[in-house]
């Protein structure tokens, strides 16, 4: 058996980005999901959308080349691409709720086998940080989640049922963790690809939900 490797965050996001199709309009959540934009594939064009009303923006601005009026959803300075357009916040969420976003990638505290996910509130803390997550979860054609498989304390985040207040019910289509790539099917989590050196049984051990293990299970692919 090969050495067990947990995926780095960039690798996890690369793997999700490989699923993006030519011409897709993509909204990347703040934090880990923004790493998806580092994956490049010249055979396809991705249109980046951010909540603040910029559509068709490009990579992060290099130092000295920042435009103080152009930021992404994380407040990072980005660069314009040809064809970029700007709208106001209500028009931006028209795009989101109106079904124009092909995929949104978000981080999460928990994902459950029915496609629920939780990423805005921890009951032990007062208040919550929703931002545009609930609108994106309700409006985007597909919700992909990128998160570590377990908490720092080793508790699994891949559950039968979310324990935290959810962001939206039944919307997650695909999940990547440092241990595997999962599709959420009507029957639950289907393990599509595993991290190098990890057996399906070992991944199941780290998971509360029952995993569906297909016959054609593969090791993680890092390039399409």
């Amino acid at each position, binding site marked *: 058996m090969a050495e067990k490797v947990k995926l780095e965050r960039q690798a996890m996001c690369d793997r999700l980005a490989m699923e993006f199709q030519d011409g897709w309009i993509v909204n990347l959540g703040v934090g880990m999901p923004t790493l998806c934009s580092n994956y490049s594939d010249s055979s396809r064009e991705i249109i980046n959308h951010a909540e603040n009303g910029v559509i068709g923006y490009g990579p992060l601005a290099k130092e000295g080349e920042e435009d103080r*009026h152009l930021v992404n959803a994380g407040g*990072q300075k980005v660069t314009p691409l040809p064809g970029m357009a700007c709208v106001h*916040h209500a028009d931006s969420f028209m795009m989101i*709720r109106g079904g124009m976003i092909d995929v949104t990638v978000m981080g999460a505290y928990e994902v459950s086998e029915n496609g629920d996910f939780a990423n805005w509130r*921890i009951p032990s803390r007062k208040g919550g940080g*929703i*931002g545009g*997550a*609930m609108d994106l979860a309700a409006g985007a054609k597909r919700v992909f989640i990128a998160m570590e498989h377990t908490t720092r304390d080793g508790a699994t985040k891949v559950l039968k049922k979310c324990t935290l207040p959810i962001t939206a019910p039944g919307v997650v289509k695909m999940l990547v963790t440092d241990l595997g790539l999962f599709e959420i099917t009507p029957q639950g989590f289907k393990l599509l690809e595993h991290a190098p050196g990890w057996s399906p049984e070992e991944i199941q051990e780290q998971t509360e939900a029952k995993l569906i293990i297909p016959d054609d299970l593969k090791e993680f692919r890092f390039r399409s």
Partner: protein
Amino acid sequence: MKNKIYKTMDDAVADIPDGVTIFSPGFGGVGVPRNLLAALNRQGAKDLTGVSNNAGTVDEHVDIGTLVEAGQMKKMICAFTAATHPSQVTPFTKMYNDGEIDAELVPQGTLAERLRCAAAGIGGFYTPTSVGTELAEGKEHREFNGRMHVLELPLPGDYGLIRAWKADTAGNLVFRLTQRNFNPLMAMAATVTIVEVENDIVEAGELDPDLIHVAGIYVDRLVRIPEDGIWV
């Protein structure tokens, strides 16, 4: 034409009374009316309700958090009442935990739409956002076209503090790139709209009518940001 130009930020906010609702736009640090907020902080109005994407940040910039920290705000209506990352403890976080300030948490798209709803004379609207979550509890639910929605109501405000790129003497506004964000909505939804402008205010007629993002009829007061003002 009515003169809308005020000489200083302090003049422009001088009459804001205690107890009113203030709109504070901006997203990711861009398009924040920092000069007007600084003036309102100096002016000292209190018991204010603030509508903003967040309740202030951890950095040193003047924003709505400056007024929160100064005890001027009694309530915040925003899309973040806790940071997504626990390390980001703002003045608001502490005061909210200690019960010294009230807050209403609204999904960002619903916040934007509620502002537009107020400006548009719409009584209310149904959105699928938040259905199935804790935030939808107690809200009226209704199915349209096979999909559940919740009823949301307009969010009007008394004073809109706005940051624009260009303006003319008629009050027409132009924003630059992602500076636009909540600014047009808050300019349209506020009873009194006060704008800090990054460029010289030009004569009416100098802005292309097709390029204007907010029509001048929505704008009451304009102040050019001085050279020694807050720019970033």
